[in-house]
């Protein structure tokens, strides 16, 4: 009896020692979550498989995030110190506001020392990507893929209309919005009362704020006033809106994005639209659909010199995770690895966050967009910045439909900006 008791006590002691040792190591399993298009276009499943192969004993589980509307439930879990996700991909750093305000995220720079490893210094990244993941001067979001607003062009239509720069072997770059209107007018064709070729589609849906920021940055070189506050007020901007209204009234600029953000890309990919002014990756989709060499990139007026609007998909790591180091390692080796970064560029038209992977680009247009992206700005980190994506486009649409005057439009835009707290979170 005494022997049995002694053995049991020794076993109990050994088990408790073992459990302490295990607790000091991170669990070798992480869960990575993103929207279904992110999982596909960033080749996350492939990255996970390769990471497991390179690190035997590690398990990477991929799960789909249904919608960004479900993010508050994660905030509730993380506040209680619980999480079922270790790496979460979000499309707009402003979505991270609810986490940052409660200190629920790791700072990649100070907490995880992410930039200290060779090849992952800040200079190695595309500028606008790091900017988008910076909140309160801290790197809470690690950019994985980046995009910038540009002008996607149908090559055949541009050449036929005499809008091709033979020296650059690329579409002409408009100097002003009057130029954009004239190009679209040449490209627009109507047959038997139906639009055979749409001149241009400008993103006027819920992403109108991005179009406005891209346009203002291109024309004026800044989106801020002398006090460093977001402002659309300028003579160039007003002239641009007048051109937009004229083009919309004549049907040369299509309003199809009112009811579907993707409508412009769909009609561009189908070869119906000649110019698409929105995210600069759409031309790759047209190449995939209609054949290589179908489409190329140009830029918004002034965009090549002054930049445009840039945005990223960023990865965040919650403080509630038990495997922060493993999560950061997966981001480095997997999401920022060569296969994901190059694949997403050449197949899906998403720019890599790490600048070195532009060397692997199959199309020269990417070097063009890299220059634009490096000078680009992203959405200001204001409290209530979500209003930019919900309240600007109805105002612009109302102006384009002549329901309000230009002065009323500018006043309403300013009112939306005034209603946001300009401080960080």
């Amino acid at each position, binding site marked *: 009896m005494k022997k049995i008791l002694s053995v049991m006590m020794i076993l109990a002691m050994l088990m408790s020692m073992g459990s302490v040792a295990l607790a000091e190591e991170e669990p070798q399993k992480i869960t990575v979550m993103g929207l279904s298009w992110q999982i596909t276009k960033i080749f996350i499943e492939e990255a996970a498989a390769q990471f497991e192969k390179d690190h035997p004993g590690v398990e990477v589980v991929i799960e789909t995030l249904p919608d960004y509307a479900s993010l508050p439930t994660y905030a509730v879990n993380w506040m209680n110190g619980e999480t079922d996700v270790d790496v979460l991909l979000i499309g707009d750093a402003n979505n991270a506001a609810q986490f940052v305000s409660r200190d629920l995220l790791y700072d990649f720079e100070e907490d995880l020392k992410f930039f200290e490893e060779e090849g992952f210094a800040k200079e190695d990244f595309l500028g606008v990507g790091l900017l988008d993941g910076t909140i309160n001067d801290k790197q809470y979001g690690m950019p994985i893929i980046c995009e910038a607003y540009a002008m996607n062009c149908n090559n055949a239509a541009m050449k036929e209309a005499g809008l091709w720069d033979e020296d650059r072997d690329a579409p002409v770059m408009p100097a002003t919005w009057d130029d954009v209107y004239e190009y679209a007018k040449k490209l627009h064709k109507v047959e038997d009362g139906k639009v055979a070729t749409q001149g241009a589609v400008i993103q006027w849906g819920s992403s109108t704020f991005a179009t406005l920021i891209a346009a203002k940055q291109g024309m004026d070189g800044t989106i801020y006033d002398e006090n460093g506050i977001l402002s659309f007020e300028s003579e160039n901007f007003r002239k641009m809106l007048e051109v937009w209204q004229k083009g919309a009234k004549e049907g040369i600029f299509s309003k199809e994005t009112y009811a579907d953000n993707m409508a412009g890309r*769909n009609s561009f990919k189908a070869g119906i639209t000649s110019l698409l002014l929105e995210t600069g990756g759409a031309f790759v989709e047209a190449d995939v659909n209609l054949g290589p060499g179908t489409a190329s990139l140009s830029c918004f007026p002034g965009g090549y010199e002054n930049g445009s609007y840039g945005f990223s998909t960023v990865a965040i790591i919650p403080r509630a995770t038990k495997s922060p180091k493993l999560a950061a390692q997966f981001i480095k080796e997997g999401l920022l690895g060569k296969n994901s970064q190059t694949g997403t560029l050449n197949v899906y038209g998403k720019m890599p966050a790490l600048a070195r992977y532009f060397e692997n680009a199959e199309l020269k247009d990417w070097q063009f967009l890299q220059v634009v992206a490096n000078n680009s700005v992203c959405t200001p980190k204001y409290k*209530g910045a979500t209003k930019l994506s919900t309240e600007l486009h109805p105002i612009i649409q109302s102006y384009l439909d002549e329901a309000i005057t230009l002065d009323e439009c500018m006043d309403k835009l300013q009112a939306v900006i005034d209603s946001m707290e300009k401080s960080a979170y």
Partner: protein
Amino acid sequence: MAKFQRSLSARQRTKARYGVIFVLPAFLLATVFMIYPLFASLYLSLTKYNFAFDTKPQFIGMENYVKAFQDSAFIDSIGVTAVYSVLYFVLVMLGGLILALMLFYAKGKTSVFRTAYFLPIVIPLSLSSFIFNWILQKNYGLLNYFLADILGVGSLTREWLSTNPWAMISIVVVSVWATVGFETILFLNGLQALPEDMLEAGIVDGATGFRTLFSIILPNLRETFAVTGIWAILQALKVYIVPSLVTWGGPGTATTVMYMYVYRQSFTYLEMGYGAALGFIMSILIMALSLLNMRISKKV
């Protein structure tokens, strides 16, 4: 006799006890998922609480309710919902009644038609809204293609989703298409419940065609009108999916209905207190109109 009465009471008491046990699960479910959230939301509507930036709700009394009636965007959304509701209510009630009368008078082989009218209800509304968004697109939509390329009347093509009044008409038509089948079934049930001898008596008295319809059939569908009317009002006022997915609330705010605005306040801006207040205002509005409909139906 007294002993018998006592044992009967004991049996009844046992039955009552079992009754409570059977009802208890449903009562608990209702309490947890309906009654408690209702009162919790009511409290929330009296507070200022942004889920992202506030650590806890701050009691502000009726301020949210006052703010709602000074909020021009909310008032506009009520106006849009009112226009939509009137159009939808009239079309779905008329459409449902006409289809039901056709089925009623057809007699015999109507199962194919009944299935066809009811089929849109079976399709998830979000799915059909996505599809209609594609059908009604200006440049690559099926409707404009059919009008221009098949029928050769390109002049009839329109920007169905991005100009007024076509955007409002589009969402009304899609909503009526999706739900008229249910109204038809409700009306048909009411028609089939009418006593046959009443209709025969009318014919004997010389009532035919529209006379029978207006003098005998419609007055006896009063209770059916109450049910179909309330259902149509509820469908109209709580509309959300169709304008969200077909027109995205545009052009401008021309199809931004009340529920879209409430959703935006609560789940986009995370203003939980204000969103809760807007939700209660909407609920009161819907209840008031439903009661009005019941009163009118009783008087007619």
